[in-house]
């Protein structure tokens, strides 16, 4: 139980996927202009992460390892994620149109979000159990949402700031992200993995 809590806190704060491990930077810069969209993107990504984490764990342990095919890992993981995103999209469209309207536009973007594939590969590397993988995915998704929402909050304020012309847009966002990353480094001694 403690180890599960450690995995969760570690993924949210200490090894934050966006600010410490540099995974999922594209949506972090692209979809962080408004708080609402940032939260929507964060939730959609968390959802896909948990599902794909569990699916890749099953495939790895029941298909790839028993049949000696670990070299197909990258190929099969990306296929699983891509098809899973498609299924989730169709499922949501049919069953809960409200949720689909909120998350729908983000779903296709998630296929090429390296945080999702990175999570699956990392969980395999650490040889987590199924439960640990799911907790790790929840933590990672939470950390991603946290970083995205914090960034969106800052950028909403920055709309009114007087920024040098050359740094407008991406430049200042990256420097802001650097400051946030600096703040997150304060968590690095929180737990030792």
């Amino acid at each position: 139980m403690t180890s599960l809590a450690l995995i969760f806190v570690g993924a949210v704060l200490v090894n934050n996927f966006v600010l410490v491990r540099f995974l999922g930077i594209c949506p972090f810069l692209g979809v962080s202009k408004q708080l609402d969209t940032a939260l929507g993107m964060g939730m959609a990504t968390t959802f896909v992460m948990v599902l794909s984490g569990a699916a890749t764990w099953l495939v790895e342990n029941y298909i790839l390892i028993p049949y000696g095919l670990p070299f197909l890992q990258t190929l099969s993981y990306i296929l699983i994620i891509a098809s899973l995103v498609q299924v989730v999209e169709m499922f949501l469209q049919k069953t809960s149109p409200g949720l689909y309207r909120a998350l729908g536009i983000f779903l296709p973007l998630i296929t090429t979000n390296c945080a999702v594939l990175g999570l699956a590969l990392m969980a395999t590397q650490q040889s987590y159990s199924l439960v640990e993988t799911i907790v790790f995915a929840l933590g990672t998704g939470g950390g991603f949402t946290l970083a995205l929402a914090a960034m969106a909050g800052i950028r909403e304020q920055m709309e009114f700031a007087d920024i040098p012309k050359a740094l407008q847009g991406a430049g200042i966002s990256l420097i802001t992200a650097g400051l946030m990353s600096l703040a997150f480094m304060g968590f690095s001694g929180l737990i030792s993995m």
Partner: protein
Amino acid sequence: MQTSINREFLKGLWDEHPILRLLIGMCPTLAVTTAAVNGLGMGLSVIFVLVCSSVIISLIRNFIPNQVRIPCFIMIIATFTTIIDMVLAAYFPALHEVLGLFIPLIVVNCIILGRAEAFACKNPPARAFIDALGMGLGVTWGLTFIGAIREIMGMGTVFGLQIVPETATSWIIFLLPPGAFFTLGIVVGAMNHINHVMERRRQQTVRSAAAGQAVQG
């Protein structure tokens, strides 16, 4: 025709530089550029995957049904990514260790899928090759440049050669995650500034040329 081929090649090096102008493929850019040599290694891996997959996609572009083109592209890219992963693990284990997770993640690098979707699936193989090579070289110089800055600031070396006196304080922060964001932010800003200045100069020349003609007339 010749000029347009030159243009396909050169656009990736500056005007449409994937990392510094279009801001795609940021994750490996930030993660692996702790030293110039790592940036170069990552850049060369990206060139390999980008060129091979672009040419293959361009060759079979007329056989891929439009509805399933993206999964097809991803499969082709994943195949070459697996190849480079195995080659690096076998021949360059040290580099493979440093780049780690980011080798398999070339699969989801938006630069490669972006070129496949925007260029390779609409153009003949030769042009796709030129385009991919230009973009790949753009990525490589970008990664090596950022890696070199971080290495100089953080360790005082470039490609392992000491260039700053060892007595000088090295700023470890540049090797840590925040340094990656700062460096990239400043390089992107500098590139924008250069483009603004060049744009202004060009307008000035156009205007003074027009003025000169008016006087002569």
